[in-house]
């Protein structure tokens, strides 16, 4: 597997803000790479520089061995790009729009027509081929955009926020389509998104991109390992009561360093209710290592009923909340935490 996109120490500033800060990234042939980050993280800027539509301040880019800043045309001939919120000429039909793209790519008309119809079928738009794109829905536009990108038979496709503004079913369909096309044709896909949950399902690798910097890359598992290496493991236990003796017993298990009972969410009127009082208490235990078996044994030995014991994996939710939610502001506080 050879590297098709190679970015080294890429930096780009707008006025005094750094949009992309010393980014280094390699993408291999045939893989689906998700560039994930909140709005304004510099994803689109990076993509524009990959296509030579924007000039980097420093650093080097190589796409298929070509420098897109110096030679954008050969790069654009082999790389398809679906912009964020793609638009079409609204008084032309879907097919006509695809034909225009084909002509700009110097594909002869008869070949282009065949290919356009084939692609429209693949993206499920055969019925709308002769409809004006002004009447297309957002999801249809994105699918037509995908067909448009594939018209030139690219080696790499770059999709900027392809799932933005589509309903969940449409999004899943589109992502499945992207994965299928990538697998069938050996396409390299680079897609950017802030919708971590949906997009990671189809990505081979993801890169977390916040405030112009790539915080981590890899598959989701290794990502959480690198991101949460220093963090304690969280174990949630549901008990019918937490007597002080039990609390001490759990606390004496090696590795456990904090036990916490989160306050009940219900109001005072409800907690007086006899029914809710019988509900189990949630106990939050933080530990350095995975000590759930010991906790279970301790609880059972103490004669307390154990309803559930759950070791919390640092999943996408955590990643999301830590890095994405709150956008830029969150990123800044986290930066401070990491450097301090």
């Amino acid at each position, binding site marked *: 597997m050879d590297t098709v996109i190679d970015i080294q120490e890429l930096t780009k500033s707008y006025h005094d803000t750094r949009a992309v800060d010393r980014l280094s990234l390699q993408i291999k042939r045939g893989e689906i790479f998700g560039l994930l980050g909140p709005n304004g993280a510099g994803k689109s800027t990076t993509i524009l520089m990959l296509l030579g539509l924007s000039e980097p301040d420093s650093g080097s880019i190589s796409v298929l061995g070509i420098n897109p800043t110096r*030679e954008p045309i050969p790069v*654009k001939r082999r790389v398809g790009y679906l912009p*964020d919120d793609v*638009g079409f000429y609204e008084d032309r039909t879907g097919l006509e729009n695809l034909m*225009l793209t084909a002509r700009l790519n*110097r594909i002869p008309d008869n070949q282009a027509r065949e290919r356009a119809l084939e692609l429209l079928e693949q993206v499920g738009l055969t019925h709308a081929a002769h409809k004006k794109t002004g009447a297309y829905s957002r999801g249809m536009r994105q699918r037509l955009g995908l067909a448009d990108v594939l018209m030139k038979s690219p080696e790499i496709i770059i999709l900027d926020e392809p799932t933005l503004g589509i309903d969940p079913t449409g999004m899943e369909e589109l992502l499945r389509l992207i994965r299928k096309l990538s697998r069938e044709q050996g396409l390299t896909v680079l897609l950017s998104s802030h919708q971590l949950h949906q997009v990671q399902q189809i990505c081979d690798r993801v890169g977390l991109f916040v405030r112009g910097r790539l915080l981590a890359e890899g598959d989701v598992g290794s990502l959480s390992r690198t991101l949460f290496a220093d963090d304690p493991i969280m174990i949630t236990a549901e008990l019918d009561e937490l007597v002080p003796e039990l609390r001490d017993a759990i606390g004496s298990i090696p590795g456990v360093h904090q036990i916490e009972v989160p306050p009940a969410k219900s109001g005072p009127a409800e907690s007086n209710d006899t029914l809710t009082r019988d509900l189990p208490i949630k106990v939050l235990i933080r530990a350095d290592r995975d000590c759930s078996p010991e906790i279970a044994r301790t609880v059972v030995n103490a004669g307390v009923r154990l309803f559930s014991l759950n070791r919390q994996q640092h999943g996408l939710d955590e990643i999301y909340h830590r890095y994405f939610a709150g956008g830029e502001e969150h990123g800044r506080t986290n930066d401070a935490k990491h450097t301090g």
Partner: protein
Amino acid sequence: MAERTTPSIPAKLAGVGRRLQALFESREKGPAKPTRAPGETAVEKSSHPSMPSAFGVLVRKEIADHIRSWRFILLLGIIALTCVASLYTAMNSIREALGSENGVHDFVILKLFTISDGTLPTFIGFVGFLGPLLGIGMGFDAINSERNKGTLSRIMAQPIHRDDLLNAKFAASLIVISFMFITLGLLTMALGTLIIGIPPTLEEFLRIISFLVVTICYVGFWLNLSITFSVRFRQPATSALSSIAVWLFFSFFFDMILQLLSRGLAPSTASATVQDVMSYQNLMLWLGRLSPYTLFNEATTTLLMPSIRNLGPLTQEQVYGAIASPLPFGQSLLLVWPQIIGLAAATLICFAISYVLFLRQEIRGRS
């Protein structure tokens, strides 16, 4: 920003549509293009020799868009109506003009364009006034509507040079405008010939054709001005208003400002020498020529009225001995050559500004 490696403006402008393809390619292959990426055009040409260039494709698309659009039909309607109206008023007064000049029937067809019975402006008056509107109407949303519709970044992601789009926009609009004016001019001439019954002479024909070329240059200036604004401003409404503001300024306010200036600068009648008066007159003339409207008026009236022998002040001795006969076509053309060059230069300056602005702009999605 990244695609500054493009050939020069004249080299790009040379390829107008498919028919000029051959010329375009020969230019590209010529020594004038060392800046293009090496090997790239060679690959294009050899793989599909019969395919039009990206520029040709875009020009065709733009022309199709213009012709299908309601805006074009409306503008065409307005221009056609005014031409019919001015032809009608010219017809009314041409009998008097012919009758009074005791049998001198020189340049009858040209009179169709320049006389009126006073109820409506003349043909050239109308064109001078409405031509800018046409140019502005064709160009004010050239780039920013593409940006707002999200098509700009999609087109830019295709293997084309960045300036191809801008050149195509300009060339397509200019082609459409040229066809429109040439058709209207020839139609007017033909109708006039039919109604009056006197065929145009070769000189009249040449004069009318050169009048049409000047008109196209003039409308091209306004077209380019509005394209420049469409590159600069994100909202089509803003760019339309800015273009119209410039148009109104030159149509109405420029003259007023000139009058104010002339009052301030005028030499006192008591002490002024001939030299003073002459230099004052010349200064005012040159100030007036800063306006494209003045340039257009001087150029067209001279071309269509052969009796106009000069455009500046003349002394008594210069006039002495001159025969009051119409100028030949070549001399009229020589007289207005600076005006024509001025109009073309203004057009090119606007185009250069929009070119530089566009190449330096970042292509993003709708934002």
